[in-house]
């Protein structure tokens, strides 16, 4: 079969499609919608993955957590001294953070304790916080947009009362709100000073939630991690790479579930087409017979059928992807994005960023176009290899 495009054959294929206009339109619409649905899932997953991956490399190389009875527990800050003695470790910091359950709204906030005197603190806070009206004060509370809205609905506009484990109250003034640009990262966060966080969670001064470790040379991370494991047999050593893999997995898991569902519906669609085209009374079969009787070779018939299928599937592909792009990035994927977002009370209003991923586009192409072409060509080939009179009869 020659690879050159036969324009007469292409014209004939277009004529054949135009003759069966309603069928062509119907198949194109169904295929476009199926492709649009699959593409939408891939696009949403891609955007969320992209959001995550662009900040993941800023994480510390290793996080060390203490386990007791298989459960996470606070770690002694004195461990930092022995960690710093390991060759390759650049820096180690104790972190104080946790969940704060706000019973009235039944919401859980993430409360992080930061030291206002830590390097880059003030500079970064000024960059990411609106209405930042404190500088060196230790009693301060900066919240995400979602937390601010919830607190406001319970009339906490100036300050907030944290309830300590012993029932006491810690009152902190509301000093700032994180910018809307970082809403996806900061929506449910409350940032206070380390001192206040220790008070709210009743964590002693010599204890911390976990320890983050910076390693200067990325190639030494595995060695440092194994040394840490030997040094602290009761601890869990989490590397940045493990966290990245976990994130990718959970997003791929969600889009994978829908890919499975899509493949089922796609195959049902192709089965119907295949079944229809190999049916004894089908118009196409008669057409093939007539073409053969007129002297067409099998390869020409197959080429003509290939053109027909390719035209329909390519147009459906472009239409489907176009619809999906409009639905995901311009309409912001109503309904479908809740599959990825979950049903949290602290709903963030982030915008899915547009990411042009050629790998995804080619994956969708190869999942739809060749399968449709095959589903059309195979029955045509079966009809074409029979004798003309047998097929027409």
């Amino acid at each position, binding site marked *: 079969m020659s690879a050159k495009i036969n324009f007469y054959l*292409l*014209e004939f294929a277009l*004529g054949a499609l135009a003759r069966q206009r309603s069928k062509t339109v119907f198949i194109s619409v169904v295929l476009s919608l199926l492709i649009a649905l699959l593409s939408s899932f891939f696009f949403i997953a891609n955007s*969320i993955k*992209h*959001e*995550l991956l*662009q*900040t*993941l490399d*800023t*994480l510390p190389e290793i996080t060390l957590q203490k*386990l007791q009875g*298989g459960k*996470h527990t606070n770690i002694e800050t004195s461990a930092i001294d022995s960690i710093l003695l390991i060759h390759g470790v650049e820096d180690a910091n104790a*972190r104080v*953070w946790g*969940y704060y359950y706000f019973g009235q709204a039944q919401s859980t906030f*993430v409360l992080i304790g*930061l030291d206002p005197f830590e390097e*880059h603190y003030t500079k*970064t*806070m000024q*960059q*990411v916080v609106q209405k930042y009206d404190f500088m060196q004060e230790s009693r301060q509370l900066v919240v995400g947009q*979602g937390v601010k809205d919830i607190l406001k609905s319970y009339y906490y506009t100036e300050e907030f009362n944290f309830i300590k484990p012993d029932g006491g109250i810690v009152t902190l003034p509301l000093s700032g709100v*994180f*910018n809307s*640009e*970082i*809403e996806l*990262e900061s*929506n*449910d*966060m409350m940032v206070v000073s380390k001192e206040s966080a220790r008070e709210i969670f009743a964590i002693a001064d010599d204890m911390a*939630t*976990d320890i*983050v470790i910076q390693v200067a040379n990325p190639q030494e991370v595995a060695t440092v991690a194994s040394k840490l*494991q030997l040094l602290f047999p009761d*601890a*869990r*050593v*989490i590397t940045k790479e493990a966290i990245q893999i*976990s*994130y990718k997995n*959970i997003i791929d898991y969600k889009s994978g579930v829908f890919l499975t569902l899509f493949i089922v519906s796609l195959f049902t669609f192709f089965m119907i087409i295949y079944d229809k085209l190999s049916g004894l009374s089908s118009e196409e079969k008669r057409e093939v017979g007539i073409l053969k009787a007129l002297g067409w070779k099998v390869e020409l018939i197959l080429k003509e059928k290939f053109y027909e299928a390719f035209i329909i599937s390519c*147009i459906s592909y*472009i*239409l489907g*992807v*176009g619809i999906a*792009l409009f639905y995901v990035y*311009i309409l912001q994927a109503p309904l479908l994005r809740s599959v990825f*977002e*979950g049903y949290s009370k*602290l709903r*963030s209003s982030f915008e899915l960023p*547009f*990411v*042009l991923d050629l790998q995804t586009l080619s994956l969708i192409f190869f999942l739809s176009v060749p399968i449709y072409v095959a589903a059309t060509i195979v029955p045509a080939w079966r009809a074409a290899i029979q004798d003309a009179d047998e097929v027409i009869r």
Partner: protein
Amino acid sequence: MSKTPKKFFFFLSTLIIFFIGELLYLQIFHSIDPEAKKQKRAFVTLVGLPDLAISMEADYIRHRSLSTYFSLFKEGPLMREYYRTTYLYQPSNTYFTEHSNER
């Protein structure tokens, strides 16, 4: 050339132009703003938690560092918690209201 191919090529070129136009529009107006990206990176560097503020069923992914009442058995150093097997839902408020007299 008859009328059908002309119509088809007109339709196809319109579709392709529209598609490329849509891609360009999205690339210009809906891709990540570099300033926002800078802020996000600064924020994550500061707090050290990259988790997105979206709720995911797998509790170990959002704030995986802490054990919560969702986790029955938190994983040891070699075994990671996996979804469903160690996952528990908190009963709803209706449940507590209905059973408050029995307590």
